[in-house]
């Protein structure tokens, strides 16, 4: 995998607070790389050091072979940024923003095309101040894509959006990846990282506590998956023994919960359904509860993600 971002031992200190404490990782070309963690974990500081907006106190950063501190101008031409807490004047219209920003680049893509691809055609003449949160973020993505960048940085892209708008933005980010671009994003939504990212670095107190694909992180977790279903009759004793591996079963009224170790060889749900069918048991409302990145965070830090 060709690395487009390489960070080694990044350190950033604000007064007595160590915001980023020796962070190292690489981002491969064409992947969606996510940095997740609670507010204050050091995500934004990390992303802004990589973008050259802040000066690191220690460590090495290379973005497309450039040093963000020394080659800031060059970097601006081949990367697209969406920042937390950045804005446009309220009275600037959507098309005006795209038109003006494209004049900043020597070879910007056609903003009219971007505007329609991001679903902003109808809002063409709306002032920025009148846009909804989702529309603003779509406009920011469009602005970030104007230079036809090799890497797109998205900092807390969906914070403050409703679930529907959030899903729409996720689709857009996947589209960006499909155009062959690398995406580096930060989020404090574990679900977002899980659904969107190829690889995720979990950051806590300025340190990376885990880095892998979401599936890999979950697989590595010593957590249980749960199969929950309702049964009209009684569950035959010995049902647990008919399943392979370490499992245990709890029955509460009509509801049955089968617990199995995460990362087992045969999918637990398949075995459970097979056995239920073979033994002629009429079950309904069967669902599986998989551990997710929230559980990963909990087990790594001993704290829940959301305070």
């Amino acid at each position, binding site marked *: 995998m060709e690395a487009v971002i390489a960070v080694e031992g990044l350190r950033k200190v604000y007064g007595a607070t160590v915001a980023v404490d020796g962070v190292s990782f690489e981002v491969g070309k064409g992947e969606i790389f996510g940095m997740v963690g609670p507010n204050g974990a050091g995500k934004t500081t990390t992303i802004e050091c990589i973008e050259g907006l802040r000066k690191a106190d220690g460590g090495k950063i290379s973005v497309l072979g450039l040093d963000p501190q020394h080659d800031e101008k060059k970097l601006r031409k081949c990367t697209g940024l969406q920042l937390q807490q950045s*804005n*446009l004047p309220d009275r600037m219209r959507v098309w*005006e923003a795209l038109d003006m920003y494209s004049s900043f680049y020597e070879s910007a893509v056609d903003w009219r095309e971007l505007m329609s691809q991001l679903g902003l055609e109808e809002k063409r003449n709306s002032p920025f101040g009148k846009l909804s949160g989702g529309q603003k973020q779509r406009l920011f993505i469009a602005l970030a894509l104007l230079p036809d960048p090799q890497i797109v940085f998205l900092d807390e892209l969906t914070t403050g959006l409703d679930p529907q708008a959030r899903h729409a933005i996720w689709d857009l980010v996947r589209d960006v990846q499909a155009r062959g671009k690398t995406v580096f994003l930060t989020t404090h939504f574990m679900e977002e990282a899980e659904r969107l990212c190829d690889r995720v670095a979990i950051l806590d107190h300025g340190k990376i506590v885990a880095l892998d694909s979401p599936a890999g992180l979950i697989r590595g977790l010593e957590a249980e998956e749960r199969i929950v279903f309702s049964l009209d009759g009684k569950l035959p004793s010995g049902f647990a023994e008919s399943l392979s591996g370490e499992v245990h079963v709890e029955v509460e009224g009509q509801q049955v919960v089968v617990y199995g170790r995460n990362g087992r060889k045969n999918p637990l749900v398949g075995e459970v359904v097979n056995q239920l069918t073979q033994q002629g048991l009429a079950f309904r409302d069967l669902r599986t509860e998989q551990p997710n990145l929230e559980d990963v965070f909990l087990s790594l830090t001993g704290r829940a993600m959301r305070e």
Partner: protein
Amino acid sequence: MKSLMKMTWMEAKLFLREPVSAFFTLIFPLLMLLIFGSIYNSQPEGVPGGTGMISPLIPSFTAMIIGVVGLMSVTITMATYRENGILRRLRTTPVSPLVVMAAQVIVVFVMTVLGMILLMVAGKLFYHVRSEGSILCFMGGMVLSSLSFFGLGFILAGTLPNARMAQIVAMVLNYPMLILSGAAWPRELMPETVQKISAFVPLTYVVNLLRGLWNGEAWGEHLLNVGVLVVMLILGVVISVKTFRWE
């Protein structure tokens, strides 16, 4: 160059969409001229407060526009842009801070010129007053005064901690400045002690220079005014480039 043109055009549209700044630059001085004009015009010439009072209103109100635009528009726009993250957003692009500042300067300068032209046209049409001197000389004085004053706005915007502070400081400085300098009110009507304070108000030098040039006096008679404004201009450029902050 393309980015400077686009940004200047954009800033000009934004300026006109902001009713307050457009009003104080273009409409308010014109209204003042018409109000004062109608008062003075009812008196015969040669009488104190007569029609002879109308002509100096044009350079004075031009100075007023320069003061308001430099102190209020530039300061508040730049401070707000910084505080709201508008400059931060621009920083993510290859655009240079000089382009951002130049676009502001060009827009407020053009608006000042427009405000001045409105005053001149109204003066000529309604009261048949015009400059006793060369219009080119007057324009030259106006360019110097504007640029020195815009520099002041950038300095305030660059050094004050936030937009609210910038707004308050600009307002607090603005009104006494307009009165003490004689831009809004003939300085001769004020007590002598107050007139002495005027020496410390930068806009006084703009009023003196513009009124002099308007009355046909030579630049050579205004070395003090020109000197003060040139020093302000140099300080303004140096300090505003040094204190420019994206965030």
